[in-house]
Each structure stands twice: as C-alpha cells, then as structure tokens.
C-alpha cells in the first residue's frame, strides 16, 4: 500500500482511501483531502517533518505520521 508519506517531493498523487478514524481523520477530510482529490507534494520541512502539500489550490502542512493514513495512487 502506497501512502502519502511515500510520495516524493515534486510528485503528484491521487487519494485512493483514508484510513484511521476520529479527530485527525475528520480534520484531514475537512481540509479537503477526500477520495479522488489530487495532491502535489511541495516540500518537506527542514527537520524532515512535517510535509507541505498543495491540495484544492491551497497549501497545507501535515505530519508524516498523519500522511501515513492517506492511501494514494
């Protein structure tokens, strides 16, 4: 299973499914990361975590631990 965490900087992927539950999942979805949406990985923070994404035309940062919940293709 490929997750958002494995996507390299500069690559674009499409969300296949969201795992996990509760507040973090809800928050991720509230911010617009839903099934079928395209995500572009812009960069990773200087210390290696979190990562910065472009989704639905704006910039979002998520921790790698949370990115692992997002299955992508």
């Amino acid at each position, binding site marked *: 299973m490929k997750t958002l965490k494995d996507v390299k900087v500069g690559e674009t992927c499409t969300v296949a499914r*969201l795992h996990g*539950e*509760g*507040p*973090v*999942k*809800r*928050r*991720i*979805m*509230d*911010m*617009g990361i*839903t*099934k079928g*949406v395209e995500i572009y990985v812009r*960069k*990773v*923070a*200087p*210390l*290696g*975590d*979190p990562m*910065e994404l472009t989704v*639905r*035309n*704006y*910039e*979002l*940062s*998520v*921790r790698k631990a*949370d990115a692992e919940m997002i299955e992508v293709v």
Partner: protein
Amino acid sequence: MSIKIALAGNPNCGKTTLFNALTGSNQYVGNWPGVTVEKKEGKLKGEKDVIIQDLPGIYSLSPYTLEEVVARSYLVNEKPDAILNIIDGTNIERNLYLTTQLIELGIPVVMAVNMIDLVRKNGDKIDLKKLSAELGCQAVEISALKNEGSEKAAQMAEAAAKADKAVELPHVFTGSVEHAIAHIEESIQGKVDDRFLRWYAVKLFERDDKVQDELKLDKALLDHIDQHIKDCETEMDDDAESIITNQRYAYINNVVSKAVKKKARVEHLTVSDKIDQIVTNRVLALPIFALVMFLMYSLSMGTSIADGGWAIGTFATDWTNDVLFGEIVPNALGGFLESIGVAGWLNGLIMDGIVAGVGAVLGFVPQMLVLFFLLSILEDVGYMSRVAFIMDRIFRKFGLSGKSFIPVLVGTGCGVPGVMASRTIENERDRRMTIMTTCFIPCGAKMPIIGLIAGAMFGGSSLVAVSAYFIGMAAIICSGVILKKTKLFAGDPAPFVMELPAYHVPAWGNVFRATWERGWSFIKRAGSVILAATVVLWFLQGFGFENGAFGMVEDQDNSVLAAIATKVAWIFAPLGFGNWRATVASVSGLIAKENVVGTFGVLYHFGGELSENGDEIWAAVAQDYTALSAYAFMIFNLLCAPCFAAMGAIKREMNNGKWTAIAIGYMCALAYCSALVVYQLGGIISGEVGFNFFTIVAVVILVAFIYLLVRPNKYTGINEVKIDTKKITANK
C-alpha cells in the same frame, strides 16, 4: 429589537479586516467564557441596533476543535438573526465546505466572496448569480482590504435577518445518504426546533456525540437511527462522517464547475511561492528563522538603545520604570503629598504601595507593545504558520507547539510578554502548556538572584548562570513530557493539519489594532491583580508590632511579614534555607524577582544603596548559607511562582481561575521538589547533610519524577477537547 449578525468564515479569509471595517472602534474584545479563545463583538457602523458577533475562524463545524465547538454552540444556542459567511474567493472550494454546513442551520446566510480583486487579477470569474442559486442564499463580492462592498454585505445580511425567510436547502447529499437523513429528520421531528431539523439530522448521521448528548434521545430511537446509518455505511463502504464529508466536497466540485471559470494558466510561481521557496527552504529556513527571532528579540527585549543596543522596547520600559515611576511621578506626587501634610502611613501607601504597583503594571507595557507589534506583523504576513511548520518536529515531542519557541525566547527577557505571546498558538492544549512552562526560563529580573548566589557562594562563577538556563530549559522539557501524559492534557498534540496561507503585505490597521488590544487587555485584566497584590504585600512588609504598638515599622525585622515568615520558615528547612530572611526575600520576589536581592540588603541591615547583584552583602549572606543551600535557594526562586505581573498575565491568558491555580501550583510544587532533591541528595553525596527522613522523601520524589517522565502515555489517540458547552452559551 436589536439584530444579531454572526460573522463566520475560515481562518485567513479576511474576517478580521471585514469585522474592523464594519464596526470601526465600536468593539468589545473579551474571551469566550472559560476558554482561551478570543471573543469579539461590535456594533455595525451607523446602526444602533445591529450587533456583529465575530466567531472564531473555523474550517468546519465538527465537534473536535475548541474553536469549532465555540462557534457551533453560539450558532445553535444563541440563534443569531443572520450569518455573514466570508469566503476567500481565491480558495473557494475549501471555503464553501463551511458554507454547506452553515446553511443547514436554518439561519439566513449571506455569502461575502472576499479578495475579489485577487480573483480578478488571476483572471478567474465567479458567477455570483449561479453560486447563489446553487446554494440557496445571497452572495456579494467584496474586498475587505480595499473596503469594497463591505457595507453592502452588511446591509444584505441585515435585510436577510429582517426578512427571516426559511431557506430552501440545496441537495447536497444524494441517494441513500439523503434517504437516511430524511428518515432521521422524521424520527426526531417535534423534538427539535423545525429550523434546525436538518442540522440535527446530519449531526446524528455523523454520530456527533455532542449532539447525541444534547438531544437525550431514548435508546430505542438511537438504535433505530443507527440501523439506518449502518445500512448506509455498508452500502458506501465508508464511515458515516467520511461519507458526509465526501458528499459535501463532491457537491462543491459540481457547484464550482458551474459557477467559477478558472483561467487556464501556465504553471508559474506566484510571488508568495517564491518567498516560500526561500523562507522554508531546507537549508535556509533555520538560519532565516534564527535571524527573524534575533531581530524580534533585539528590537523589543534586548539591550536598550540607550546602552548601544537596538531595543526600543527596553528603552521605553526602562524609562517608564526608572524615570516616570522612579522620579517624575514620585517626586511630583511626593512633593504634593508633603505639601498637604498627609499622614506617614498614607504617604507610604500611595508612594510605596499604589505608585509602585501601578508602575509595576505600566512598566511592562511599552516593551509589550513593541513585541506585539512585531508579532502581529509576523502573524499578519503569514510567517507564524511557517514557524510552526519549521519547529514542529522539535516541540511536539514535549507536547508543545512549534510556535511555543517564541514565548520561551521572549521569556528570557521577561515572562510577562512571554506568557502573552502564547496567544499566537492556535491549539488550546498547546497554549495552556506553553503558558504553564514559559516562566521557567530565567527572565531578566531573575539575573540579580543568580548574580547574588554566584557572587556570594561560588566566587562569581559564570557556570551558575549557565546552569540556571539549563535548569529552566530542563524544567520546560520535563514538564512538557510529564504533563502531556496527565489527564489534564490527555491525548496527542493537536492534529497538525495546518493551512499555510499565502504571504501578503500586512494590513496595518489590523496590526495596530491587535497590538493595542493585547496591551490594553493586559492593563485591564492583569493590572488589577498586580496592583492589589502589590498593595497587600506592601502592608505586610511595612507594618508590624514595634515597641509594643502596631504601626509602620522602622526595622523590617518587626514586620508582619517577618513574623509570618518566622512561623512558616520550617517549610523550607528541608530545602536548606529554613531561615526567615530567605522566606521574606522569596515572598518579596513576588512583586518583582529582583526584589529578592534588595530585600536581602534590608534584612542584612545594609544601609547604603545596594548594587544590582548585591556584592556588598555577599560576605553576610555567605555566613548563613552553604554553597548547596544557596544553590537550592536559587533553584527554588527560579522555578517557583513568578512575579505578580506574570501571574496576572497567566490569569489573563488562561481566562480561568482553576487553570491559573493549576499553573501556579504546579510551578511552586516543581520548585519545591527540585530544590529538596538537590539539597538532600547533594548533601548526602557531599556529606553536608546526614541521612534523615527527607533523604527518603527526596529519593521518592526522584523516582516518581523519573516514572512520570518515562511512563507510557495511556491517553494516546484521545484527542477530544473537553469543554463545557453550557458555559460558553451561558454568557447571554
């Protein structure tokens, strides 16, 4: 009858700018009851009866974050007459997501599509007619920054409030979901206000526990509803909450494709993108961050410009303390009081109690204003969210936010603005944790204490000061690790799913207003505590029994405070400084930490003017202490309750008596335990202290401390903010 209009929208959508434009100076700024979230309310300019209620910036009406719960309890329980929903036109999809939830509330909604100038500049077109037809509510274009259309938006909201028409809801949900929601609506009809039927039905479908608790449905009905939800979940192969979110976004995609025409653009980098490439660059980000922090510190808290530094803040604060409240006010007032011949005690009360107290409050203000001005700029241009982005990795380990770095840094200068700077942290739990720990770092006023101990006992070794910073840092880190595993801070640090807004030129009006509001709220909300405490302590220190009569004392040895200190000094005996002078000095440190040294001067009967580090009394102090007990005394004074001003700031920021007490109690407990362990165990090792009962206590404390540090966190995964929604709405 006055009309209430609620202002709702995503963070960074220009809500504050619009609110300021609509209400001007007619604002009331406070907190939502019991929580650290700011509450703003104002009267619409030119209208007496229209009240604008600014809600916290939110992305959704989920039950998980404090801001969202505050906003939705207000909307459901206070039932404003209309909602003015601000939408960032450049980021319309995510902004409309909140709109689809707001319209379900059955309150008339007017959409104000903001930043329309930027939308046009990008070459995009938003068809307002289509947008408003699709969502079933009126829409208007505005540019809050350029003050275009703001008034029209307010008028439309006012008209919508007066018309109070039931809105025709768009069909956001489809197929079996709509079917299930309709079923739920049917089964709760009559139990809730008809206007809110859809809202409650959707929330019940999401299994929102806050709504489940509120409605108190009987178990049979809940089970019946749950069966519908489960059928839906099986069919769609997803959980109910996700189904709803997915369908909302699918619906929005459809609306946007009809109403918004995006200019096909060649991929190019915007100015904001270019700035971000440098500012959060893997190599440059940390040096740039260090430089920004250095500049911020140097300008506000660092060496005064009078002494060759850059700090305009320190300069103004020094002037307020040394000249305004050190010379001008005392001289003028003293001369006046003498000329009308007031009694000695009254003169003392006014000069040493009230003037000193007011000075203690106002002295911090200039420095604070400079600092908040700079912080407001950083916040407004969008750099603060990058700070969180850059520093998150380090700080989240200690249950703190990446932004916690700033309060701690500022705290090395003065804890008061440090505590106040925690306001920029968005998550309540992180904010509280930061407030509790910021004062551990040695502030400028604690330097004289360190100087006294280093000079009197350690031959002036600079290692003492280094160790003080080390202890402060360790206290912050250990507290973070320990506290985040307690029930108080149960759970992981907030889900760090954070928007990084585009950089933009600061809106100066917002910056100045935010600066002033913070300064003023310190004076108003913290000032009274500081003043009262200073006056009480002045009384205890200056009065007592002397020559058989109660009155003002010549010799502080006879003061009420000294009498009390003599009675309670035994408390500090296990820490190695169970003499009354140390107790009095520690208590006087509550007014301002540098007073500890001055009080020693008085108590050791040094007649002249004492230097800052008190080198004149080093010899006298050295007779009463060993190196170890003096060091324990220093640790205690560095970590225990901060000065009244900082406690006032803590109370202001916690906005909650219980949390203030917890914070200060925790500091005192940590200070006592640390000093005890150092003195007792250090004493055993050096042979200074024999084995006694407190040796066992020290060992127990140490073991417990290590256990608390390394024990597993049993609350991992629980993330819910526990708040009393009744409290928030009780404030009618």
